[in-house]
């Protein structure tokens, strides 16, 4: 606000009420606030403030409404033209979710070429930045330069420059499993009874997170929810099961499949890519099947 310091007491007073009413103030509010002012002086003061760009002017139900502009916008758009201001406002509104160029165009009513120019200039001033969206690689969203992109845009810890780091996830997945497996045997023939054993074989996400952090395999800081995502993949891998403690926290435990690999996957046909083309006669037959030869050889 320092840049807008006014020597003028009238302007100060008007600004004060405007601050109290973020939805905007009407002429009547101003008159009520500074009753000892003639209308000519009032008009002059308001005009001055409008010129400074402190207020936005709206027409609501026939009467004029003055609304205080947000602080930052005043600073950032300094020295910018009107188009830039409009675009800037739209981008600012979008917050850390960003806004798509198409939406800016529709809402600002600017022509395509002009808009690109405006965006370029804002970008070069390092006021806004373009962020690639992880969900759609070609979709770019704009947001203010100093903002950290939302998880839905950046993808969180698992993305490096919009690329999914599957190796990283794999390593974490394996480490988490190792941690759970270290505990898993506690339930087996525990002399203190199975319930205690089960409790010992469970691990909460916080514990796993601590273990991962202590390992130091990740240079990105992993939040508990990130670890939960990884633990959930373990559940989907069928290598762990999750339970809920009475206090509502989720716990995980490494498990084995209910049955050893069934017969179907022990024979080559169960994994054979050609199994649906295999017939009694023809080119693919069990009699001279290469896979079967290999299998029977060893």
């Amino acid at each position, binding site marked *: 606000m320092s840049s807008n310091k006014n020597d003028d007491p009238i302007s100060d007073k008007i600004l004060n009420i405007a601050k109290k009413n973020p939805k905007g103030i009407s002429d009547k509010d101003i008159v009520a606030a500074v009753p000892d002012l003639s209308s000519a002086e009032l008009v002059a003061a308001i005009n001055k403030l409008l010129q400074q760009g402190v207020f936005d002017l709206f027409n609501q139900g026939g009467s004029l409404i003055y609304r205080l502009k947000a602080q930052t916008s005043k600073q950032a758009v300094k020295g910018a033209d009107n188009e830039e201001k409009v675009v800037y406002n739209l981008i600012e509104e979008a917050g850390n979710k960003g806004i798509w160029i198409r939406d800016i165009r529709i809402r600002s009513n600017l022509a395509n070429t002009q808009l690109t120019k405006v965006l370029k200039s804002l970008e070069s001033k390092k006021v806004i930045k373009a962020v690639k969206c992880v969900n759609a690689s070609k979709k770019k969203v704009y947001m203010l330069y100093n903002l950290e992109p939302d998880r839905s845009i950046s993808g969180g810890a698992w993305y490096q420059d919009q690329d999914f780091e599957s190796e990283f996830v794999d390593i974490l997945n394996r480490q988490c499993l190792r941690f759970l497996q270290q505990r898993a045997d506690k339930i087996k023939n525990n002399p203190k009874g*199975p319930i205690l054993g089960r409790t010992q074989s469970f691990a909460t996400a916080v514990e796993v997170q601590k273990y991962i952090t202590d390992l130091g395999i990740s240079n990105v800081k992993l939040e508990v929810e990130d670890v939960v995502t990884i633990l959930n*993949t373990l559940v989907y*891998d069928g290598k762990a099961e999750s339970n809920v403690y009475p206090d509502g926290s989720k716990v995980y435990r490494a498990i084995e499949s209910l049955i050893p690999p*069934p*017969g179907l996957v022990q024979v080559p046909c*169960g994994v054979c890519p050609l199994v649906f083309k295999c017939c009694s006669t023809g080119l693919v037959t069990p009699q001279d099947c290469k896979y079967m030869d290999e299998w029977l050889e060893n």
Partner: protein
Amino acid sequence: MSHQLGRVVSEILHRYFGELVQQVGNDLFIYGSKPISMIVKTTGLPRKQVIESLRTLLKFDLASFEPSVHEVVADYKLLPDNVLLLIRYPRYLLQIKSKYGTEAELLVEELLQQATSTATGLLVTVATKNKDDKEKNITILKLKDTFVSLATAGYIQQAPVADTKEGSSDVPSLVPVATIVPDLDSRQLIHAMTTGSLADIKDNIYWKVNYDRFHQDFRDDIMVKAMTRRIDDNAGELMRLLLQQMYLSSAAWAAESNPTPALDIREAVRRAADKSLLSQHVDHYLKVLEENGAGFVRRVGDAGGGQLVVCGRRAAGRLLEAVLDHVVTERLGSNAARIFRLIRTKKYIEEDDIQKHAMLPNKECKELTYKLLEEHFISVQPMKKAASSGAMAKAIYLYHIKTHDVAHTAQELCYRALHNCLRRGAHERNAHARLRDKQRRVRTIVHGMRMRGEPQQNIDDVEETLTPPELAVLKDVEKRLKQLSAAELELDRNLFILNWYFMYPK
């Protein structure tokens, strides 16, 4: 009743009964039920041979018959499920041997080979066959006791008898009879043994193996092992006791057993008592079994210290899921299995959400999803927004798993694999038929010479007619055949779980 099933059945019939029975069986499989004259017409075999084949099929309970519309001739029908049981025989024998010992194994083996037999006939045959075997030390009295206990436990049962009611049609029908544990006269048996003739004994009750009883054992075994893997030995033991309690009060294959009071279980544990850890923590084990036992056991009430039911249906479902998981993992990789399980957990899920939860790179995730779809492991349900305009109307694609359908897919795969194993085995046998024949001949000759006590020199001469390369080939073939038959048994185990799942209606 799929094409694949037909191929397997045909291959099995060929192996066990030869070409003629295979032809007749094939014909019956394709056309459903038909009378003899029609079989003769389509197969082109002489009537006599067709009748012979049908007799074999009927004897081993691989076919059934019923009066046709005209009520004077019978229509014959193949029972493919029973044909599949033929490859399960080794498992029956192993099971009975581990439970009741060698005598029981010999009895069941003989009975399986003869399909049906009278009690005395069976006992005398087995006793005579093993008369000279000093190691096993089989006596007819021991066999008799074993027979009685097998009948009591329900592993063997009385064969159905022809309906003799008046007014029925010319075609007889078989009606099952209640099994009465026989009271066999030891003196008569010993007499029959010594004279070697059964003519004096009037025994017209025929017996056969009760497959279902064996299947119950297999089922129990699977459940107990699963619990042992999931929790520990004590939990497995507890599961076994629970199943025993279940048999007392409910049908063996009930989707959910009748409630068993926990008190009875505790009592049973105390009686079993060699597991000190289990008896110390029965209640805890029950609780853990209930909460972490994959839903095999469920608590239904708190009366009398808790009421427990065994959920056969859910157990079958869980085991099926485990089988499918394994299949998907091996066919398409562990990442595909992750997606498969994810979809199962979420019931209905969109493509984008799959990517988010499975933590896989976009491209790989899509590829695997489509692969799963292609191999019929998952299904897709498009949801179109009604009456919305133009390009903006984007359909939502919900992926989900139709368990029943996927189970069928797996079953088909099993049939294919089983057929291929059988086929390959037949091929190996054919290819080396001459050598195997030679080996067999040499063995008989050598055996005969040993019996006659001829000099070692001559025996060696005969044995050397099999050259070292021939021996090497034989050994190789032997090994392969062994591997193939082991695979057949494993596939059969796999099919058992699938069939168990199909036992409960959708």
